């Protein structure tokens, strides 16, 4: 179903309606009855071909008729000299400037309008190449072309081919007056309808006289408006919205040209393809006459007419040459191209090129192109721009990415583990040293294999002498406290040392009282005492057992031994015996002997009991292991002394036994110890030398490799 667009609101309406169903504006203008103007051609509903131009309409003024007659003669005379007439369609820029669209081809049989026919032919051929861009305006300009034959402005004479130099010198422009088809002004007619205000306004605009500066010269009789002009006006008002094509209509060269331009003659005859229409040849300078109008297909620019001189020497260059001289596109470096993301992601300009803008479809500017839009750019509904989401990655970045991927992949790979040798050189070395040492000990301990000299008697240390003095000066039956505080691990060392001192104390017939802050100490003391020979009788000693509490227990035992240890290890009450009857505190013991293998225990006893013993002037004897001697010796060598005597290690025991005359049992151990220590000393020195030499060799190798 055909639709008609309202000139006011622009909405589509069925074609059979006369009034817009939305705004009630007239869709079809009211047409004056054709009785007054019988010669009016029928108004076509669709774009039609140009109607035939009547040869001599009765309304043509005499001056126009005369001009046409002279035109015919002049055309024949100047046919050869006439510049070639361009028969091709005018370029778009030309049409856009003037607001014209090429018109349909319409052959005219009138010899007076050959140039017009040629223009039409050109426009027809232009339409064939460019497509059918005919719009309703063709009809309008059809009428316009008709009207041009009847009446033409003074300066149109200039465009005619060499006919009227007098007219070209003083072009006169008729004053344009709005009149109806009958030549009557709208005010003098009784209109059968009431035009809407907008339509009336448009009509008034069209009917209003043009400014004087635009139209100069020739005056037109006011009482009579050319038919063609009236038809044009009517068509413009009523048919601008009819059958609007989807694509904006490109103004044809003929239809959108003003009447005065369409009627121009370029001088008739000649090569119409190469002749610009509407230019009087005689008035043109020579260089301008040589201009050749190139059809659009020959010219790449639509905005600039492709003017080429016949004589290439006239101008320094031609368009084709100019195209060859066109600067080459600069090839930008990669980093510059990478810096212009705007071009990649920025949306295309919302501003359409001028040639792509659609013609205004509604309002008083209907049919015109290039007008300011009534709607704001924001309100226009258009397809949103497409932003590029492609990531631009340079080569260096790609290289970095690949390197990072390699690093991450290498993290997943497990490093090969070094296979630890089952038998290392350290294992072999340890076994060798152990075998060597055990062999030496076995050889020296085996009876009859090794006989040593024993410790030298003259090298008895003062602490041994003091210990011997203290032990030998004990009265018979004197209570002596023995504190057994060494671990079972060092039983091999401490048993011999303790046995030597205990044996000497037993000779003084003192009463031994054994106590221990170690749970196993009491049992060890019991074993040592029972292994001594001659055997110590049960009534010669008592074992109080385990003293709990550590330093607190020792401190308590120092002040109240009866209360803290009322029973012996065997459960008997020993404090009531004759030996311990007078013992109420630690100061009541004649001698306190502390047998320990570590300096901590020895320091604990010294710190807790020494003040009490000092006040009571009671001696304190320490029997220690070789490892505790460095920690206990300050208590002996300090002035005033806190320890009155000390027997430390196997050497001290040997010296003590040799002092008391019991060296036989110690000699064997002393000899083995000496041999073993000698071997150990040799091994330590050899290992140190080997380690130093290996470090030195490694350093020399490193220095050599560095050089």
């Amino acid at each position: 179903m055909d639709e008609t667009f309202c000139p006011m609101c622009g909405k589509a309406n069925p074609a059979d309606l006369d009034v817009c169903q939305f705004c009630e504006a007239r869709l079809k203008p009211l047409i004056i009855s054709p009785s007054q103007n019988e010669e009016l051609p029928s108004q076509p509903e669709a774009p039609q071909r140009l109607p035939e131009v009547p040869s001599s309409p009765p309304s043509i003024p005499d001056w126009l008729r005369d001009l046409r007659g002279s035109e015919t003669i002049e055309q024949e005379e100047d046919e050869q000299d006439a510049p070639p007439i361009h028969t091709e369609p005018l370029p778009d820029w030309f049409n856009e400037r003037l607001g014209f669209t090429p018109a349909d081809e319409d052959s005219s049989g009138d010899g007076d309008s050959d140039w017009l026919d040629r223009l039409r032919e050109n426009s027809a051929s232009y339409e064939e190449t460019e497509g059918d861009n005919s719009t309703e305006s063709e009809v309008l300009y059809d009428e316009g072309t008709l009207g041009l034959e009847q009446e033409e402005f003074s300066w149109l004479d200039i465009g005619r081919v060499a006919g009227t130099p007098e007219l070209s010198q003083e072009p006169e422009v008729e004053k344009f007056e709005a009149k109806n088809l009958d030549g009557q002004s709208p005010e003098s007619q009784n209109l059968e309808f009431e035009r809407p205000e907008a339509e009336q306004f448009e009509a008034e605009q069209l009917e209003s006289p043009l400014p004087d500066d635009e139209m100069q010269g020739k005056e037109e009789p006011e009482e009579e408006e050319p038919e063609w002009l009236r038809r044009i006006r009517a068509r413009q008002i009523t048919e601008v919205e009819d059958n609007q094509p989807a694509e904006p209509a490109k103004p044809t060269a003929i239809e959108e040209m003003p009447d005065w331009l369409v009627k121009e003659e370029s001088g008739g005859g000649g090569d119409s393809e190469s002749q610009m229409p509407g230019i009087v040849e005689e008035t043109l300078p020579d260089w301008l006459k040589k201009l050749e109008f190139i059809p659009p297909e020959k010219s790449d620019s639509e905005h600039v007419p492709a003017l080429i001189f016949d004589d290439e020497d006239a101008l320094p260059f031609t368009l084709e040459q100019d195209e060859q001289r066109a600067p080459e596109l600069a090839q930008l470096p990669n980093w510059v191209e990478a810096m212009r993301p705007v071009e990649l992601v920025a949306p295309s300009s919302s501003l359409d090129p001028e040639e792509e803008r659609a013609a205004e479809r509604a309002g008083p500017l209907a049919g015109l192109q290039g007008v300011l839009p009534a709607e704001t750019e924001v309100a226009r509904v258009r397809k949103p721009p497409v932003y590029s989401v492609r990531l631009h990655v340079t080569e260096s970045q790609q290289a970095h990415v690949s390197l990072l991927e390699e690093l991450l992949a290498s993290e997943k790979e497990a490093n090969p583990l070094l296979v630890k040798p089952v038998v290392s050189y350290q294992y072999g070395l340890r076994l060798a040293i152990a075998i060597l040492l055990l062999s030496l000990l076995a050889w020296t301990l085996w009876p009859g294999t090794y006989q040593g000299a024993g410790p030298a008697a003259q090298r008895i240390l003062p602490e041994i002498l003091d210990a011997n003095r203290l032990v030998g000066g004990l009265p018979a039956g004197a209570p002596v406290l023995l504190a057994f505080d060494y671990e079972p691990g060092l039983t091999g060392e401490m048993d011999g040392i303790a046995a030597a001192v205990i044996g000497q104390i037993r000779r003084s017939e003192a009463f031994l009282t054994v106590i221990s802050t170690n749970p196993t100490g009491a049992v060890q003391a019991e074993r040592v005492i029972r292994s001594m020979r001659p055997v110590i009788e049960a009534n010669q000693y008592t074992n109080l057992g385990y003293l709990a509490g550590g330093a607190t227990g020792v401190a308590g035992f120092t002040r109240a031994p009866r209360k803290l240890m009322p029973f012996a290890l065997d459960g008997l009450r020993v404090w009531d015996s004759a030996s311990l009857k007078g013992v109420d505190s630690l100061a009541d013991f004649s001698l306190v002997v502390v047998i320990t293998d570590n300096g901590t225990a020895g320091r604990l006893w010294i710190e807790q009991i020494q003040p009490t013993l000092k006040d009571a002037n009671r001696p304190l004897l320490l029997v220690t292991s070789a490892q505790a001697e460095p920690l206990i010796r300050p208590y002996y060598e300090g002035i005033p002394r806190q320890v009155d005597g000390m027997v430390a290690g196997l050497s001290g025991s040997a010296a003590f036994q040799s002092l008391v005359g019991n060296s036989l049992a110690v000699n064997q151990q002393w000899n083995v110890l000496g041999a073993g220590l000698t071997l150990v000393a040799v091994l330590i020195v050899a290992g140190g030398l080997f380690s130093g030499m290996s470090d030195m060799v490694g350093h020399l190798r490193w220095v050599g490799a560095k050089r």
Partner: protein
Amino acid sequence: MPADMSLVDLLGTIAGFILTILVFSYLVGDNPLFRFAVHLFIGVATGFAAAVIIHNVILDQLIFPLFYQRQAAYLLLTPPLLLGAWMLAKISPRMAFLGNPVMGYLVGAGAAAAIGGAILGTLFPQANASTNLLNVRLALQAGVNPGGYLLNGIIILIGSVGTLVYFHFGARQSLGQPAQRHPLIDELGRIGQVFIAVTFGTLFAGVYVAAFTALIERVSFLISFIRNFLTL
């Protein structure tokens, strides 16, 4: 084998021989035999200690006096009995807080005894002894060579001061330079470092000698056992 050796002693000797061999097996590396011997020793020692504590402490020092020294023991042993029972609350996690006062009393008493003994038994006497290192008169009274005594005192004094200075870590920071000690203190620290090294060496030597002595005893035991069995 000696004739007077009883069966118990014989079994003990055999057990000792076997255990000694098991401990010596550590020479070839850690093995189940060695671990068995270690675990056996720990178990036996713990059990024996428990037996000694129960018999020698709890029964003899707490329970029996209450029964045999009733009136005098009540006042003296009742508080320890109650505190010991109160400390048994430590067995339960929910009631462990009840044993905190007892633990506090024990810790406090032990700390007091230890600190008092350290001050009165070591700190003061040793400091007094250090001041007498250069007292020649005391040397004469002791009948010691004064020259040797004086030299000994100087060495001991330098070593003691240097060792104490070595553990001084105070330093001054100047502009543009890292924090460092005074040069004099730094030098004394170096001297003290030498004495510390000598001390550690002496301690190591003493430990080695003690251990070697124990090894000698064990090897002798093994040889005696072998010889005794060979003579069987």
